[in-house]
């Protein structure tokens, strides 16, 4: 079933036969099995798959934050065996530092990287404005709604214009409108900065709308079930979602999903 799509020109990420097993008290959990995936430089790849199939785990392996059990991951020319700091990550849980205001939470990225602070502050303000949080720069995480916290963590990941962006359901807590807006903003930023994006989502239409390729993962142990090339023109426009081609893609993905047997019969 593994239909590998045409390999992109300049590979940025190369995942070869990677497996991951979590050792548990009551036996091991086999989270990822034999993953093969190559992502080109500047490519936007989305990952969809049922809950618990190993998407977040794969993202953590890519970032070098968790070690893999078998196989090989290369990012750029580098073999990943320790944390890779040349990335921006949006974690599934917004990991905000509760002792810092929204603005300071974004700025930590610059502080740690020893980037010039004044310019960073400028950019952080712009990013917060982009996600409509200009009025909450000084609010502490406790004083923010779930969606607001998530938006702060997105700004943090974007601050330093990383060459590789890893996003774990970044828009999950946002309403449809804000989400549409941020999707467009994200695409613009990617185009401007030639970022490679590894994007986990639960929304098939979001995946289709944003991506060059969509990876469908099968449930435990997570495998790459199928990779779909999305052949839609760029820049993407919201109106494209009404296109037949677009709906064809979403339908195809939905069918693959259903084929995974995740879905029980209707009761």
């Amino acid at each position, binding site marked *: 079933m593994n239909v590998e799509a045409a390999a992109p020109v300049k590979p940025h990420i190369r995942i070869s036969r990677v497996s991951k097993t979590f050792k548990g008290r009551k036996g091991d959990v086999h989270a990822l099995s034999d993953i093969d995936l190559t992502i080109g430089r500047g490519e936007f790849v989305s990952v969809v798959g049922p809950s618990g199939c190993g998407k977040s785990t794969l993202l*953590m392996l890519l*970032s070098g*934050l968790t070690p893999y059990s078998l196989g090989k991951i290369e990012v750029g020319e580098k073999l990943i065996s320790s*944390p*890779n*700091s*040349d*990335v921006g*990550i949006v*974690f599934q*849980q917004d*990991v905000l*530092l*509760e*002792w810092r205001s929204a603005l300071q939470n974004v700025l*930590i*990225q610059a*502080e*740690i*990287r020893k980037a010039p602070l004044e310019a960073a502050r400028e950019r952080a303000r712009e990013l917060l404005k982009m996600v409509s949080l200009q009025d909450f720069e000084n609010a*502490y995480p*406790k004083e923010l709604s779930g969606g607001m916290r998530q938006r702060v963590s997105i700004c943090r990941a974007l601050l330093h214009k990383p060459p590789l962006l890893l996003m774990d359901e970044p828009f999950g807590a946002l309403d449809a409108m804000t989400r549409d807006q941020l999707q467009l903003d994200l695409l613009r930023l990617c185009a401007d900065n030639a970022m490679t994006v590894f994007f986990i989502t639960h929304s098939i239409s979001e995946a289709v709308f944003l991506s060059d390729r969509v990876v469908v993962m099968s449930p435990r142990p997570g495998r790459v079930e199928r990779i779909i090339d999305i052949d839609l023109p760029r820049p993407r426009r919201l109106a494209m979602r009404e296109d037949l081609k677009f709906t064809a893609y979403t339908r195809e993905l939905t069918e693959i999903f259903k084929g995974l047997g995740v879905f029980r019969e209707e009761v």
Partner: protein
Amino acid sequence: MATITEAAPPAHPLRLSLRVLGNISPAFWTLVLLVVLWELAVQINQVPVYILPAPSRVAAEIIDYWPRLMINAGVTVSEILIGFGCAIAVGVPLAVLVTYSRVAERAIYPLIVASQTIPKVAIAPLLMAWFGYGLTPKIVIVVLLSFFPIVINSVVGLKASSAEMLYLAQSMGATPWQTFWKFRLPQALPYIFAGLKLATVLAVIGAVVAEFIGADRGLGYVIVVAGSSFNIARQFAAIIVISAIGMVFFVIIELLERLVVPWKNTAVVASE
């Protein structure tokens, strides 16, 4: 049934300090009550002064002996402050070492524990032999007594950082120093402050005990001398000044905590 209260907004530092000072009052009244009870107990039972002097008698002694009490208090306070400072300077780095290095944890930790269980009074001759008879052995005793809670609580605090937060730090390429300074330390502050509070009282005790063993000034010395000449009221006067120093010290650390860890002072859910 539980009731709900509004989360108090963090106030301006100055307003805060004032509020904290205001907060002391219930304790003050308990204290007053205790003192009155003590006075009555002594008066009614005709307790002789060499057993337990009445507060009035102690107060008279404090007033009488005020100038010399203050001079000696100055000595004790400076021992406490220097010793406490050194305890922090020793304790926090040690905690960092233990947190970051498994080997250090296994090799050093038990020895620190052992060092704590040694009665300082018993090894006084050693300390005197090594550090002479001046200020140094007192500082050493203060440090030995007070650095332990700083270490223990700092270790627990520094280890309390969530895995996610450390992942975040690593993804930014944070150096160990940055991880410590920007992620682990702020997270650990509530624990560290609990340790500092414990350390304050131990520092006070340490200074006094050190003065018991060999000193020619300080409040501990006053207690010993007053005791040997059976001046119990003066002993109590000195003890009360010591307690006051300890309390002021403790309150200062608490004020500092509110300034340094303001984000903790929100969201209060009181259950009845």
